[in-house]
Every structure is written in structure tokens, then in C-alpha cells.
């Protein structure tokens, strides 16, 4: 038994020594002899294992590629988000540059920093400019779209502005054609509109003037804070109130405070000046032109009716042989129908007669319907006749190239 055990031990040792010697021999073999041996093993015994390894490595490579593709896709999406944000900011800054070019002077550009505390309704903004830059309390804060708010606190390097959504905000406002005036308040009953937008109220509008939905509302310049002509918003609808002698309208603001990132603060030297030519009160001109056209149509209807009556009267008098030349003048004794006698004198050319008989006011000339271009220009002149001369010149002045560009 012991002999057998010893024999087994010797055999084991001999096997071990044999393995070691063979391994050492293979180690010292030249490369050209080792490589065929390895190749034989790779092609026979190890072939299935080599296949397994190559498949595993292929899986691993595919997995890595998939991860890299996912990472690239994520990066691309992230870049896309950044690009959209940059584009939006770029658009805002371009608009602000355009506004600066139109204002020429008297403004301070500032970055609007929203409060760290998240608000459902943004009511204040921190501006990155203060008294050192010329900003004072109650300085108007505007954006390329219109009124944003006013400065409430001015420190040397920063200032805090209340927005039009703030409960303390008030602004004197008017319609585009200057026919209606009122005071703009924040619409606090609901805070946010149904679609999440900020809303305003135009209160104390005289009951005799009704504003149609879509009418643009501007600052009137009467309050002393905001210069005249800055867009505030658009009339959405009339609000029913207990006050029977005035009207209240709901406004959609031109500016969304939540998206304001850069603003212009108007300095005191710029505030008293009008802004009619800055925001291009197109709506006012259109409204005025519409009003003049309506007036022209009314005058023309009266003139036509008078000429018809005159012709009928002449025919009757001729038939009776008792025609009197001055009877027409007596017939048309109403002062507001002064054009009628001339129209009667020459019933075949009523419009020219109407124009000639009127005073040299553009409105009367505008009754000639065939020349719409003349009527439009006269409408502008008529609008100007009812308002300030400088505002008129601005409203009919051709749009400057830089203004066109920034539209």
C-alpha cells in the first residue's frame, strides 16, 4: 500500500516535471516553430472557444457603439435645445437692438433677472442697471414689444422694476386713433388667463366710445411716467362692471413678462418725448383712415340724395313752368349739407361739385371714390389735422430701412 502510494506520488511528480519541462521547451522554441503549434490549437481544440470569444467581443463592441450612439444622440438633442434657446435670445436681442436704433438716445439697456423664488405671476424684475447708468425711480421699462413696467427701486448698480402684472401698476392709455382714453390696471381677478397669459384691464373708458376687439392700446403720455405711443396691448373684449358710466376692457398685453430677458429703461431725458415713431402706430393710422372713409361715404350719400331731390324738383318745375333758380338753395338749408347747392347746380358732376363747394379740408376731397390713393393720403392728412402735427408727420413718414429690417 505504501509502495503504491509512493509510486503514485512519483508518477504525479514525474508528470508535473514533464509538464514543466515541455512548457519550458515551448517557451524557448523559436517563433516560427511556436506559431504553427498555436495555429494548430486555434484551429482544433480552441476553435469553439475562439468563436465564443469573438462573438462576445462583437457583442461588447456593439454594446459600446450603442452607448456611444445614445450619447451622441443625447448630445445632439442637448445642442438642439441650446440652439433653440440661443435663437430665441438672439431674436430678442436683435429686436432690442432695433429698438435702441429707433430710440436714438435716452435709454439704458439692461438684463432682466427673474426672481429666484418661482412665482405663478411674475410681478417684479431685477434689472442689471441702476442709478449709475441714469436710471431713476418711475423710469419706464420697455421692450421691443411694448410696455413692461416701471422702476420701483433704483440702486447704484441694480434696480427693481414692477411689471404691469403688479397690483400697483397703473398707466394712462389710449386707443390707437386717440378717440378713447382710460387707465390700465392689472387684471387681478384671475391673475392668469385661461391660456396662462397675463391680462390687463383698460378702465374708465367713456361710455360713448366703444372699442372693438383687436384695437391696439398705447400709452397716452398723460400720466407723466410713460411717454405717449408705447404699445400696451390689444383689446380682447369688454368686461361687465357695476359702473354704468364707463366701460372696462380686457387687454391682451403685448409683452409676456415671463419671457422678458432684456429690456430698455427710458431715462428722464427721453421720457417726455413721444414714441409715436418708435413703435410705428400703424393701427392708429389704419383706424383713422377707416374713420375718414366712413365719413366720406356719409357725405357722399347725402350729396347724392340732394342731387336726386334737386333733379326731381327741376323736372317738376320745368313741367310746371315755374322753375326758380334759387329754390334749391332753400331746399338744402341744413348747414351740414353745404355741398348740396353746388351739386344741384351741376347734377351731372356731383362729386366734383362737392369737392369744390367744400372748404379746403381733406375730408371733403376724399369723397371721390375713384381715387382711392388720394383718399388714403387725405385720410392721413385728416388724421393729422385732428392731432398733433409732429405725430402726424411721424405717422405718415415712410418706414425707415432699419425699422423695416427689424420687423
Amino acid at each position, binding site marked *: 500500500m505504501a509502495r503504491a502510494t509512493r509510486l503514485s506520488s512519483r508518477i504525479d511528480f514525474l508528470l508535473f516535471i514533464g509538464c514543466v519541462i515541455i512548457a519550458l521547451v515551448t517557451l524557448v522554441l523559436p517563433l516560427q516553430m511556436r506559431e504553427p503549434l498555436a495555429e494548430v490549437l*486555434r484551429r482544433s481544440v480552441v476553435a469553439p472557444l475562439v468563436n465564443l470569444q469573438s462573438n462576445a467581443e462583437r457583442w461588447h463592441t456593439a454594446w459600446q457603439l450603442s452607448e456611444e450612439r445614445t450619447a451622441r444622440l443625447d448630445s445632439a438633442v442637448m445642442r438642439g435645445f441650446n440652439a433653440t434657446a440661443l435663437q430665441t435670445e438672439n431674436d430678442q436681442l436683435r429686436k432690442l437692438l432695433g429698438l435702441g436704433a429707433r430710440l436714438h438716445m435716452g435709454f439704458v439697456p439692461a438684463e432682466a433677472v427673474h426672481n429666484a423664488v418661482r412665482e405663478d405671476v411674475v410681478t417684479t424684475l431685477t434689472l442689471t442697471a441702476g442709478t449709475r447708468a441714469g436710471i431713476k425711480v418711475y423710469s419706464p421699462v420697455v421692450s421691443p414689444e411694448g410696455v413692461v413696467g416701471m422702476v420701483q427701486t433704483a440702486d447704484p448698480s441694480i434696480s427693481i422694476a414692477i411689471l404691469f402684472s403688479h397690483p400697483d401698476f397703473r398707466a394712462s392709455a389710449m386707443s390707437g386713433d386717440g378717440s378713447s382714453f382710460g387707465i390700465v390696471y392689472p387684471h387681478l381677478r384671475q391673475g392668469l388667463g385661461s391660456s396662462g397669459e397675463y391680462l390687463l384691464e383698460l378702465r374708465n373708458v367713456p361710455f360713448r366710445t366703444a372699442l372693438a376687439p383687436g384695437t391696439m392700446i398705447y400709452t397716452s403720455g398723460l400720466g407723466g411716467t410713460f411717454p405717449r405711443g408705447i404699445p400696451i396691448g390689444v383689446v380682447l373684449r369688454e368686461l361687465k362692471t357695476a359702473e354704468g358710466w364707463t366701460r372696462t376692457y380686457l387687454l391682451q398685453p403685448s409683452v409676456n413678462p415671463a419671457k422678458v430677458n432684456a429690456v430698455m429703461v427710458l431715462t428722464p431725458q427721453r421720457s417726455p418725448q413721444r414714441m409715436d415713431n418708435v413703435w410705428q402706430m400703424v393701427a392708429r393710422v389704419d383706424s383713422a383712415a377707416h374713420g375718414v372713409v366712413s365719413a366720406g361715404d356719409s357725405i357722399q350719400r347725402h350729396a347724392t340724395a340732394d342731387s336726386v331731390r334737386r333733379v326731381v324738383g327741376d323736372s317738376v318745375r320745368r313741367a310746371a313752368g315755374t322753375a326758380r333758380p334759387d329754390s334749391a338753395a332753400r331746399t338744402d338749408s341744413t348747414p351740414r349739407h353745404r355741398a348740396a347747392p353746388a351739386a344741384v347746380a351741376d347734377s351731372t358732376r356731383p362729386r366734383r361739385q362737392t369737392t369744390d363747394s367744400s372748404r379746403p379740408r381733406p375730408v371733403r376731397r376724399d369723397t371721390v371714390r375713384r381715387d382711392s390713393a388720394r383718399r388714403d393720403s387725405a385720410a392721413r392728412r385728416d388724421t393729422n389735422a385732428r392731432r398733433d402735427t409732429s405725430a402726424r408727420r411721424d405717422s405718415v413718414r415712410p418706414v425707415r430701412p432699419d425699422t423695416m429690417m427689424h420687423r
Partner: protein
Amino acid sequence: MNWNAVRTAVICAILIVLHYTVRPLLAWNVSIDFLIIALMFGAVRMRPGLAALFGFALGLVSDSLSPGAFGAAALGMSVVGFGASWLKAVFFADNLALNGFFIFLGKWIFDLIFVLVGHRMHGAELFMQIVVWSSLSAAMTAVAGILAVALLRPLMEVRTA
């Protein structure tokens, strides 16, 4: 039929397959050497001579894929297999930590022989490989070996009537 031998062969085959499938998938810098685990697992269940032959065969398989040091792995695994078989009494002890330590030792000795005989590294690189990377790899192999032994122990228990 010796079912223990069959079970041992099957488990060693599984571990060898894992070496060529799981390790490339993981592709860690410090990789698990399933061949050493298979060698240690099989060596303690056979005579030292056969364990040396088993290690030699596994080493040749490993060397065939790295012809630059053809024979180094065969030498290392022969030594490790023979040594593990000599120390089978320790391995049969019901102590996972002890088993893990011997797997760690086997892997580290194998790496030492492989690196020294293969003449692949010199100086500081050799020192770093032996002290740091081989130790880390041996530790990872030991952890994987402990898990394997713990999982496979019920299969390898000798049933008595």
C-alpha cells in the same frame, strides 16, 4: 460511472466557457480569470499529476491565443494546478474565506510566473504589474471563485447512502 468526475468536468467546462464569453463582455481593466478558478476547482478533485496535466492543457489553450509567450501560461498553470492538488486538504475545508485566499494566491502565483517567464515587462512596469494589477486581478478572481464555490457546493456534495 464516476459522477463526481463528470460533474467536475461539466463545471470546469462551464467556467472555461465563461472565461471566453463573460470576460470579453465585461472588458474590465482588472479582469476575472475563470480559467484559474476552473483549474483550482478541478485540481483539488484529482491527483497532483493529473492536476498538473490539466493545468498544462489549460495553459496551452490560453497560450494559443497569445503566441508571444507560448508556454508561459502552460508552465504557470501546471505549477498552480500541482500545488492546488497538493493542498487539497485545505481546499476541502468548509471555509469560503480560506478557499478565496487560495484562489487569490493561485492567481497571483500564476501571474507572477507568467510575467516573469514571458519576459514581457521590466523594471517599474513589472513591479506595478505584479504588485498592483496582478493583486487586483487575483482579488477579483478570488471573489468570483468564492461565489462560484458557494453556488456549486451543493452540486459537488458527496451523497452517502
